[in-house]
C-alpha cells in the first residue's frame, strides 16, 4: 500500500540525506546543481534587486526602493490618459461620490505613506492632557493664562502696530541719539544724531519668592527633556521647586515683554562640566539623532505620556522616574506645597487654591491698601443743596398768577423783539372809542387814533386793480373758442340773459376783445361776483381748443366743409378757431407736385449696408461703414443733413410759438383787441426763439458722468473697504 508522502516528510528526508549533521535549526535547502551557492562572482547583469514585494525597483536600493504610480510615473500601463470631466443635469459630477479622483496617496511611495500614517496619530496636546484630571489645576489657577490663552497676536499688539510700533521696538516717542554702530564706538560724534525708536525694555515682573533658595539662585542646569527645554512648553505646570522661579521668569518674559520672538533662555550658568548633554549652543539639535524619523516627537510635551506610563502616580516628578518612598515624597512635597493652616496636607484629590497672581494680587486687593480713616471731627467743605420743601410747592399756573409781569416785560426778559403790532385803539375812531368807554365803563382806554390799516389805505384804482387781479385768468384761445361756442342753442346760460351777458363780457375780456374788465354789479358783493367769475371760468374751460392729433380728428362739420369748400380767406372767425393747423408741406412733395423734378425732389443720405450685403453684391463696403459697427438687420439710413427735413423739424418744434403768433397776428383780424396784445406776444415769441438759440451747447462726444474725474481711492476704500482692521 503506497501513499503519497507529505511534503514535510519529503523535505525532512531530503534534508536528512543531504545534510545529516544538522541537529539544531533547519538545514539549508539542498544544493541546486544549477545554482552556484559558493559566494562566487555573479556578473552585474545577473544581479537582481527586488523590493519587499518582489518588484524590480532599483531606486533607493538600500532601503528597498521606492515606487509610486506606474514605474514612478503618473501614468498607467496604457500611458497618461487625462480623465474626462462628465457632468450632466441628471448625473452631476459633484454628486458622484465614487468618481475616480486622484488622491495624494496615488503619488506617494511607501515611505511617504508610512510618514503620512505616522502623522495621523492623533494625540491631545499637553494643554489638554489634563482634561478631567486635576493635574494641571495648579497652573491653571495660578494665572490668567488658563483664561486668556492667545494663540495669535493680541489686540494690544494690533493696536500698537496701527500706531506705528514694530516688533523689537519699545513703546514711546522716538529718541534722538547717535547711532550705535559697533565698528566705530570710539567716535563720539554728537552731531550725527538720529531718531530711533526707544529700546525695548522688558517689563520687570516682581516675583514673590516662594521657595527657600537663596536670593539670585537660579537653579543648576539640568538635563531636561527636549520638549521641556524648549520654552514653548512654558505654560506647562510648574511643580518642581527647582524650576519654579525659572519658569515663572519665563512666563513673565513671554507675557509682558513686547518681544514676540521666541525668547532664547540663557542657559550658560551651568554647574559642573558642560558635556554634550547640556550644550548651550543649540537646544533644538539632537546630537544623537539616529534611527528612523518615525520616532520623532511630534507633540509638544508628548513625552509626558511616556513619563506618565513610567510613573503614573507621581506627577510631581518629571525628570527621573525614580522610586521615592512615601514619607520622603511627602516631605519633599511639603517643601514646596503649602500645607493647610492646621499643618496638614489637603485631602486626597484636593489641591490648594493657589494665591492669585502677584500682579493681580497687587491690583485687586482692598485689604492691602485700605482708604485712610476719616477723622471724627472732619466736616466736608461742600454743602449739599437743600431739597425743596414739598409743602411750598407752587404750580405753574399759580406762579403765573402771582407774577406781576405783563407780556411786554416777559418778552423783554426773554429777549424777544418787540412786535410791530398796534393796539386796536390805533384803528378805532374817537366815536367808537367813546362808545366802547361808555359801554365798558372804563375810562382809562387808550387814545383812539383812527388809523387805517395798510391794506385799506389804497386808492380806488388800486382797489380795482386788486379786484381785477382776482379774476380767474384764461388763455386767449380758450376764451375765443368759448365765445364761438356760446351762440348756439346749447350755449351756456341760455336761459338767463343777464348772466349770459356777464359771461360774455368775462370771455370777451379774457379773449382780449374788450379791454375793460367786467363790471361788478353794484348789488352783488365782491365775493359773490368773484365766485360767479370762477364759475364762468370753469364753464369756459371746457371749450379749450384741442391740439394736435385730437384736433385733426375732431372737427366741427361746418368748419370742415368750409375748409374744403372755400378758400382760407373767407372762412369766418369762429370756424377759423377750431380749424386744425395745416399740415406742413414737404417742400420736396410740393416741388414734385409742380413737376420740378431734380434737386428739389431729391435728397441723399448715408446708407449703411451690412457687410454680408456688400459681400453678396460683390462690392467693397463703403468707406463710412465701420466693420462690425452695424448689427445686421438695422439698416435704416441715417439722415445726415437732409435740408428739407431739418426745416421740417424746426417748423414742428416751434409750432406752438408760431401758433401763438398767428393768433395774435392779423390773420384773425376781427378782434381789434388782439392787436393790442400783439406786441407782447411777438416779444414773447421772440424770447422763445432766443431761448432756443441760447440752448447750452452739448458736446455729444463726451459724457461727463462717465468720463469725469474718478474719485480717489480713499473714497472707494471708505465705502467698500473692509471694516475689519486686519492689515
Amino acid at each position, binding site marked *: 500500500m503506497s501513499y503519497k508522502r507529505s511534503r514535510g516528510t519529503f523535505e525532512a528526508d531530503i534534508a536528512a540525506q543531504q545534510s545529516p549533521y544538522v541537529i539544531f535549526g533547519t538545514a539549508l535547502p539542498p544544493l541546486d546543481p544549477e545554482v552556484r551557492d559558493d559566494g562566487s562572482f555573479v556578473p552585474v547583469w545577473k544581479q537582481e534587486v527586488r523590493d519587499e514585494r518582489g518588484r524590480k525597483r532599483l531606486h533607493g536600493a538600500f532601503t528597498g526602493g521606492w515606487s509610486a504610480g506606474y514605474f514612478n510615473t503618473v501614468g498607467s500601463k496604457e500611458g497618461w490618459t487625462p480623465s474626462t470631466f462628465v457632468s450632466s443635469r441628471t448625473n452631476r459630477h459633484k454628486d458622484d461620490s465614487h468618481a475616480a479622483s486622484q488622491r495624494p496617496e496615488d503619488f506617494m511611495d511607501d515611505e511617504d505613506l508610512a510618514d503620512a500614517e505616522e502623522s495621523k496619530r492623533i494625540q491631545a496636546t499637553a494643554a489638554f492632557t489634563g482634561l478631567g484630571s486635576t493635574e494641571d489645576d495648579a497652573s491653571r489657577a495660578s494665572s490668567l493664562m488658563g483664561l486668556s490663552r492667545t494663540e495669535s497676536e493680541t489686540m494690544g499688539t494690533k493696536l500698537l502696530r496701527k500706531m506705528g510700533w514694530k516688533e523689537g521696538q519699545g513703546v514711546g516717542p522716538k529718541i534722538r541719539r547717535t547711532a550705535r554702530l559697533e565698528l566705530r564706538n570710539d567716535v563720539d560724534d554728537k552731531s550725527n544724531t538720529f531718531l530711533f525708536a526707544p529700546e525695548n525694555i522688558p517689563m520687570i515682573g516682581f516675583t514673590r519668592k516662594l521657595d527657600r533658595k537663596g536670593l539670585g539662585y537660579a537653579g543648576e542646569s539640568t538635563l531636561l527633556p527636549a520638549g521641556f527645554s524648549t520654552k514653548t512648553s512654558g505654560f506647562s505646570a510648574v511643580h518642581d521647586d527647582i524650576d519654579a522661579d525659572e519658569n515663572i521668569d519665563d512666563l513673565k518674559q513671554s507675557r509682558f515683554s513686547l518681544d514676540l520672538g521666541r525668547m532664547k533662555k540663557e542657559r550658560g550658568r551651568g554647574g559642573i562640566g558642560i558635556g554634550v548633554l547640556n550644550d548651550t549652543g543649540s537646544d533644538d539639535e539632537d546630537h544623537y539623532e539616529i534611527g528612523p524619523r518615525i520616532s520623532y516627537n511630534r507633540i509638544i510635551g508628548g513625552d509626558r505620556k511616556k513619563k506618565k506610563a513610567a510613573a503614573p502616580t507621581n506627577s510631581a516628578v518629571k525628570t527621573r522616574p525614580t522610586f521615592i518612598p512615601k514619607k520622603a515624597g511627602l516631605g519633599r512635597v511639603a517643601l514646596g506645597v503649602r500645607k493647610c493652616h492646621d499643618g496638614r496636607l489637603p485631602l486626597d484629590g484636593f489641591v490648594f487654591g493657589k494665591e492669585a497672581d502677584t500682579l493681580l494680587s497687587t491690583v485687586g486687593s482692598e485689604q492691602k491698601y485700605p482708604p485712610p480713616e476719616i477723622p471724627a471731627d472732619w466736616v466736608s467743605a461742600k454743602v449739599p443743596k437743600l431739597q425743596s420743601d414739598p409743602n411750598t410747592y407752587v404750580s405753574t399756573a399759580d406762579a403765573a398768577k402771582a407774577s406781576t409781569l405783563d407780556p411786554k416785560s416777559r418778552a423783554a426778559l426773554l429777549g424777544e423783539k418787540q412786535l410791530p403790532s398796534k393796539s386796536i385803539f390805533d384803528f378805532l375812531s374817537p366815536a367808537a372809542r367813546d362808545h366802547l368807554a361808555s359801554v365798558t365803563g372804563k375810562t382809562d382806554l387808550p387814545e383812539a387814533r383812527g388809523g387805517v390799516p395798510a391794506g385799506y389805505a389804497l386808492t380806488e384804482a388800486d382797489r380795482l386793480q386788486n379786484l381785477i387781479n382776482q379774476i380767474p385768468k384764461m388763455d386767449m384761445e380758450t376764451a375765443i373758442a368759448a365765445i364761438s361756442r356760446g351762440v348756439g342753442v346749447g350755449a351756456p346760460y341760455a336761459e338767463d340773459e343777464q348772466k349770459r351777458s356777464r359771461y360774455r363780457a368775462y370771455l370777451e375780456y379774457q379773449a382780449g376783445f374788450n379791454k375793460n374788465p367786467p363790471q361788478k354789479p353794484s348789488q352783488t358783493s365782491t365775493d359773490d361776483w368773484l365766485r360767479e367769475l370762477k364759475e364762468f371760468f370753469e364753464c369756459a374751460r371746457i371749450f379749450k381748443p384741442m391740439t394736435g392729433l385730437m384736433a385733426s380728428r375732431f372737427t366741427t362739420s361746418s368748419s370742415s366743409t368750409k375748409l374744403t369748400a372755400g378758400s382760407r380767406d373767407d372762412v369766418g372767425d369762429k370756424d377759423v378757431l377750431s380749424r386744425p393747423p395745416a399740415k406742413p408741406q*414737404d417742400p*420736396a*412733395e410740393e*416741388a*414734385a*407736385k409742380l*413737376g420740378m*423734378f*431734380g*434737386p428739389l*425732389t*431729391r*435728397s*441723399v*443720405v*448715408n*446708407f*449703411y*449696408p*451690412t457687410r*454680408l*450685403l*456688400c459681400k*453678396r*453684391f*460683390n*462690392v*467693397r*463696403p*463703403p*468707406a*463710412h*461703414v465701420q466693420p462690425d459697427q452695424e448689427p*445686421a*438687420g*438695422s*439698416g*435704416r*439710413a441715417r439722415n445726415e443733413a437732409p435740408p428739407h427735413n431739418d426745416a421740417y423739424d424746426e417748423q414742428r418744434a416751434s409750432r406752438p410759438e408760431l401758433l401763438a403768433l398767428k393768433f395774435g397776428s392779423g390773420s384773425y383780424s376781427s378782434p381789434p383787441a388782439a392787436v393790442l396784445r400783439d406786441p407782447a406776444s411777438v416779444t414773447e415769441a421772440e424770447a422763445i426763439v432766443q431761448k432756443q438759440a441760447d440752448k447750452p451747447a452739448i458736446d455729444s462726444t463726451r459724457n461727463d458722468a462717465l468720463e469725469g474725474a474718478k474719485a480717489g481711492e480713499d473714497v472707494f476704500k471708505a465705502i467698500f473697504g473692509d471694516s475689519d482692521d486686519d492689515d
Partner: protein
Amino acid sequence: MDFPSRPLSQLLGSSGPVHAVSYSASPGTYILTGSADRSIRLYNPSTTTAPPPLPEGRLIQTYAAHGYEVLALAVAGDNARFASAGGDRAVFLWDVATAQTTRRFGGASGHGGRVNAVAFGGAGDSLVVSGGLDTTVRVWDTRSGGGSFGGKPVQILTDAKDAVAAVAVSGAEIVAGSVDGCVRSYDVRMGRLVVDVLPASVASLCLARDAKTVLVGALDSKLRLLDRATGACLRTYAHPARRNDELRVQAVLGGKERFVVAGDEMTATTADTTAPTAEAAGRIWAWDLLTGKVVAQLAVPWGGGGDGNEGRRRVVVGRDGKEKERRNVVTCLAWKEGGFGSQFCAGGTSGVVTVFGEG
C-alpha cells in the same frame, strides 16, 4: 419694328385674378403667372393647340405652396430657381424642376404684412429683395438660412414711410418704390440712399437695362421716366383717357426700351365692338419712349376661351349682395427680354394671361 399688338395665345387655368406675370430668364421661353388662387403656373405660350378664338398656351407646372394670393414673382438668371411672395408674408424660393420650395423667408424675422414685390439680386442671384406692406425692404440670402421660416434677412431697409409697392435691383443698387411717394435708391457700393419724391404713390418701377433711368408708375395716372443720376423727369407718359389712381398697375419698358407699356384701370371702349366682352376688356397703353406719344392702345379681352362659362365668372357677388360685373383690369405686364421676336404678356383681374406678339 412695330409694337406687338396681335394676341398670340391665352394662358388659362387660374381661377382668380392674376397678380404677377414673369417671363423666364433669357431667352424667355416660359411664362410664370402668380394668381390669387394661391398657385403659380408655368406656361409655354408658344406650344399651342388652336381652339377658337385664341390658341391656348400649355400649362406645364403648377407650384402650390402659398397659403395666400401670390403677388410677386421673380425668376433667377439661371432659370433654375424663382422667388415668389404674396399675402402669406413670406418669400418662397422655388426649385423650378422639382416644384418644391427650397427656402422660405418669413417667420419671426420676416415681413409683417403682405409682400408686394420681390426681385433677385447680387452676384449669382444670391439675394432676394422683397418689399411689402410693412414698409420694409428685406434682403434675403439664398445661400444660407431660411429653412422653414427660419433665417434672418441680410438687411432690413426701413426707410419707407408707407408700404413698399415695387422693388428693382440692378447691379449693386436696390430701388424701392413706396406708397409714400418716394423712390429710394440704395447704392450699396457707395453707401448712399437717394430719395426721389414723386407727387403720388409709386405703384410700379421698371429699371432700364443700363440702370440710368427708371420708369415710375404713380397713382396720379402718369408714368415718368426719371433720370437716376439727377432725379430729373425725362418724360411723362400719360393720356387723358388712362386712369391709374388706386390700383397697383404695372408699367414696363419693352422692345429694347423703345416702348413704355402700362395697364389701365379703365376698361377698353375702343376695342372692336363685335366681341361680346367688349365693355369688360382691359386696356393696355403703349407709348414711344423717346417721343412720349401713344403708340398703341390694346384691348385685352376677358378671355377664357369658348367654353361658355366666362360670363358666369365675370359676374360676381359683391359685398353688398348684389351681382356686379367684373372689369378686366390689366395689372401686370411682362416683356419678353431676349429670344426671338418681341413679345409681352399681360395678366389682370380676369385671370387669363394674354400673350401679345408681332403679327
